C-alpha cells in the first residue's frame, strides 16, 4: 500500500535505520499529536544530525518546530508558507467560523489580558466564553454560531470547558499552541485592532505596519 515518499527518502535516506526511525516517530508525534509533546518522547531532538533532519523534513512539508515551553515542543506552519498562502487568499475556514473564533479570543484572551489576568504571550486561557457571549451582541445568527462552535471544537481551535462554580463555555483549543512566535505576535496585533481600534496601541500597530511596508519598497 505504502510507496516510498520521495521527501522522506531524500531527507532521511542517509541516516542509519535506528536514527531514521526516531526522526520519523518524532515527525508523527509532533504532527498528529493533539497538543505539545514532552521532549522525553523525542530523542531525535537531542542529537544534532537527527534534529537537523527533522527540521528539514518539517520545512519540506510546510511546517516548522515550535518550542512551547522548556519541556514541550510541537509543530506549526512555517512562517514563510503561512504568509504566502494568506497573501494568495487561501482561507479554509468559513466566515462564520472566523467571526466566532475572534469572539472567543476577545472574551477569553484579549479581555483577561488587558486586565492582566493572563500572561502577555499566552493563548491558553481558563476564562470561558459562554454561548450567550457569542450570540448576544454579535451579528452571527445563533444557528450558524452553534454550528461554527462545533466545527471549531472538532478541529481543535476551540475546547469546551464544563461549568464549575462559573458558567461552562469555550476557550482557545490545543491548535493555538502550534502558532509560531511571529504568528502569535501577528494574531495579538490583529486582536488589538479588532477589539480596540481607537486605542493608542492600535494606532502604534498601524504605524509600525505602515513603516514596515514602506521599508520594503
Amino acid at each position, binding site marked *: *500500500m505504502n*510507496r516510498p515518499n520521495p*521527501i522522506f527518502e531524500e531527507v532521511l535516506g542517509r541516516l542509519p535505520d535506528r536514527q531514521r526511525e526516531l526522526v520519523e516517530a518524532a515527525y508523527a508525534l509532533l504532527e498528529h499529536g493533539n497538543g505539545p509533546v514532552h521532549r522525553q518522547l523525542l530523542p531525535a531532538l537531542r542529537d544534532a544530525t537527527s534534529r537537523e533532519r527533522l527540521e528539514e523534513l518539517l520545512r519540506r512539508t510546510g511546517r516548522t518546530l515550535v518550542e512551547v515551553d522548556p519541556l514541550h515542543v510541537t509543530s506549526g506552519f512555517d512562517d514563510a508558507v503561512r504568509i504566502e498562502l494568506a497573501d494568495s487568499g487561501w482561507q479554509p475556514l468559513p466566515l462564520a467560523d472566523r467571526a466566532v473564533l475572534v469572539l472567543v479570543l476577545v472574551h477569553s484572551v484579549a479581555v483577561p489580558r488587558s486586565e492582566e489576568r493572563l500572561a502577555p504571550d499566552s493563548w491558553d486561557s481558563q476564562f470561558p466564553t459562554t454561548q450567550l457571549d457569542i450570540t448576544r451582541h454579535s451579528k452571527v445568527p445563533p444557528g450558524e454560531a452553534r454550528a461554527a462552535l462545533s466545527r471549531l471544537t472538532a478541529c481543535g481551535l476551540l475546547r469546551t470547558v464544563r461549568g464549575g462554580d462559573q458558567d461552562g463555555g469555550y476557550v482557545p483549543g490545543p491548535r493555538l499552541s502550534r502558532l509560531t512566535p511571529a504568528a502569535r505576535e501577528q494574531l495579538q496585533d490583529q486582536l488589538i485592532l479588532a477589539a480596540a481600534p481607537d486605542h493608542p496601541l492600535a494606532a502604534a500597530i498601524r504605524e509600525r505596519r505602515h513603516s514596515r511596508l514602506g521599508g520594503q519598497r
Partner: protein
Amino acid sequence: MTERDTALWWARIRSGGPQRVSAGGPTPAGLRRLVEADAQAVWLIPDLPDSAGPAVLTEYGVPGTSMLDSRGTLRVLAACLRCCWPDPAADLWPGRPAPTGDIGQVLRRLVPARNAVSRQQLLAAGLRRLAASGWILLEGTDTMRMGPRVASFGSLELSTLRELWRLIPDTAPDRPETS
C-alpha cells in the same frame, strides 16, 4: 515543481483537507493522486510512511485529535463503509455511491437501542462531521460516497477494516421498497 511549491501544497492539505485538482496538473513530491471515477479530477493526499503516520501515537501513548461523540460517529462511518465498499478484497477508494437511506438502515442494526429520532440525529450529525473532515463526500441531499481520506489507511488498518466489514450488518434483509 519547486520545493517551495511542494511545501505550499502540503500546507494547503494540512489546513484545508484533501485537495481536488484537475487531472492534468503535476503531482507535488510526497503526495498521492487519487483519480476520481470519471477521471476528470484527482485528489491530493499526503503519502506518509506508516512509521511517520498517526499509528505511531498509540505506540507512544500520545493522544491524537479526539472527535465529538466519537463512538456514534465511528458507527456512522462503519455503516458508510458497509454500503460503499461492495467488495472488501478491492481498494476502498473510490468505492460506490450509496443512498443515505441505506446508511440509516445499517445504522439501525448497529445501534438498536436508539429510538428513531435519536438515530436520525446521530446519522445527520455523523455524516456532517465525517464530511467536514473528508472521510466521506456528500452528493446532493441523499447520496454519499467515501472521501479521499479513506485512501490514507495503511495496510495494517485495512486488514482490520476488512475483518470488521464482515461483522457489520448489511442492508439487504429489510431494504425498504422506496429508494
